[in-house]
């Protein structure tokens, strides 16, 4: 049925008066249906799925974390208002009402820019934004205003992606660039203790809270030297304040399982991020200063708090910006984990270091690859010369 619709629309776009929007049509068609054309020149190594299918798979893997994030928004709003008897449906629908505008804004702005650029350059529409558009609303605090989200999305799509040549060419992860932009441009809206709980009611759902209400994340509490008010179970299930998608370890693990099962994400990167983080945290445990509360956090709490899991599963494994060589992935992941903990512990201004650690290693991924490729070349040369 979909195919019929596209077939009937095709002449309008290829020849008719709407031919200026051919790339838009093309983009939607290949999104909905697997294209039956193959590349016409050069040798291409093909899997049976194209990149649009990969992207859809990642979005599916993000779903558990997103759904849990919506519930978490409603949960904290109800908790803060003292309405402990709120039903599951009430809390979830409130979270949905808060979350949907963010997702819509993110996709509208990001895809809008991508469509304009594709038209302008007479290229096919690139599908990379499907994942970034879902990631960006999930890695910001719930209190981020929509217009800030729109500005950050525009910035990251233009400056992190399009000027490098579009999807697949970017050095830095666009979703993280959007977050970094918000983090440096509007620091009061990205960290601190007043942005993690929604204070307004939406469409009659949820509760209105006073403007002065504050709630810190566990890492924020630790960085400020206060005792953490979250127990290990809620850290694991995710019932704690934090950026929308990052709180629940269980939901992220389901996503990780989907990514690993479909072979999209690399288990090497994922495992080494956790190993790097755990080892560094243990190191700080043993030598950390007594007055640094973050250094005293046990390693397993470091791994389930903040954006560590989310970054390790969905950000560090991004096939475009991570290392391509298999051995390189170990090093790349390990340093991300280690750096994230180092930033958390040693920089009092930044309670969370995952974003900066991944962006930093994005920069070094090509260098790591270069050394491994060269060492492979040298080893094989030596083998050939010895014969």
């Amino acid at each position, binding site marked *: 049925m979909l195919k019929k619709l596209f077939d009937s629309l095709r002449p309008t776009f290829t020849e008719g008066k709407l031919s200026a929007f051919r790339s838009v049509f093309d983009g939607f068609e290949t999104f909905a249906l697997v294209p039956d054309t193959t590349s016409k020149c050069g040798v291409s190594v093909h899997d049976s799925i194209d990149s649009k299918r990969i992207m859809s798979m990642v979005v599916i893997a993000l779903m558990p974390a997103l759904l849990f994030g919506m519930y978490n928004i409603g949960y904290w709003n109800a908790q803060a208002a003292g309405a402990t008897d709120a039903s599951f449906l009430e809390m979830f629908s409130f979270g949905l009402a808060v979350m949907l505008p963010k997702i819509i804004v993110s996709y509208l702005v990001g895809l809008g820019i991508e469509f304009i650029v594709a038209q302008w350059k007479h290229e096919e529409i690139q599908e990379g934004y499907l994942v970034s558009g879902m990631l960006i609303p999930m890695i910001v605090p719930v209190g981020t*205003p929509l217009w800030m989200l729109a500005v950050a999305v525009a910035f990251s799509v233009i400056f992190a992606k399009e000027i490098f040549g579009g999807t697949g060419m970017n050095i830095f992860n666009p979703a993280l660039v959007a977050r970094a932009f918000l983090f*440096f*441009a*509007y620091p009061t*809206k990205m960290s601190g203790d007043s942005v993690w709980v929604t204070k307004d009611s939406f469409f009659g759902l949820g509760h209105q809270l006073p403007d002065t209400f504050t709630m810190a994340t566990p890492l924020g509490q630790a960085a400020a030297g206060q005792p953490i008010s979250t127990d290990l179970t809620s850290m694991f299930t995710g019932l704690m304040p934090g950026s929308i998608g990052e709180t629940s370890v269980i939901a992220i693990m389901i996503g990780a399982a989907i990514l690993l099962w479909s072979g999209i994400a690399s288990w090497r990167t994922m495992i080494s991020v956790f190993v790097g983080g755990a080892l560094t945290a243990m190191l700080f445990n043993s030598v950390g200063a007594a007055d640094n509360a973050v250094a005293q956090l046990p390693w397993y709490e470091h791994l389930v708090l903040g954006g560590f899991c989310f970054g390790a599963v969905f950000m560090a494994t991004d096939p475009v910006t991570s290392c391509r060589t298999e051995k390189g992935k170990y090093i790349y992941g390990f340093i991300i984990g280690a750096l994230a903990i180092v930033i958390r512990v040693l920089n009092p201004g930044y309670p969370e270091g995952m974003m900066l650690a991944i962006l930093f290693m994005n920069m070094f991924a090509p260098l790591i690859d270069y050394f491994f490729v060269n060492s492979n070349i040298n080893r094989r040369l030596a083998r050939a010369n010895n014969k």
Partner: protein
Amino acid sequence: MSLFSPKNKEAFTTPLWKDNPVVIQVLGICSALAVTSQLEPAIVMGLSVTVITAFANVIISLLRKTIPSRIRIVVQLVVVATLVTIVSQVLKAFAYDVSVQLSVYVGLIITNCILMGRLEAFAMMNGPWESFLDGVGSGLGYAWILVVVGFFRELLGAGTLLGFQVIPDCAYEAGYMNNGMMTMPAMALILVGCVIWAHRAISKEK
């Protein structure tokens, strides 16, 4: 030769657009990043560089036949350093607040690549009048980039222009916030990149 012959006009106008020192030759970037967080220091810095480039060009051009080529860089530096000191003293006397804001960057005009480039490439080979026009052109070419960058950085970073609030209070009440990243040098680099982008797009169409 008349004072405004086509060749002289060209010496003045090329550095303004076609061979702009910042966006084409990519010189003087450090100071362009350092002083443009507000509009006022950007304007003062642009004017100071214009004055120094123009007069350094004239002086070197007058001396060009007597300077031994082996020590020409030293002579050029002495001339520039003298002019920079004069400008710095004038700023301290008549615009003290701005000179405090500019702090070390006035003194660092001595090392501005635009100056040395114009002295070496133009003033050593041309007469004083042409050199003067070239110096003014190069300085203004540098200045207008600074003003553009400073305009956007002050407008978006602080919501003011030349110290006056431009963005109305009602916008802040509606949730608008100043962009803290605009006050960082990193954003200035991105803005200079945008200016280069726009410049190349416009030049290519012509």
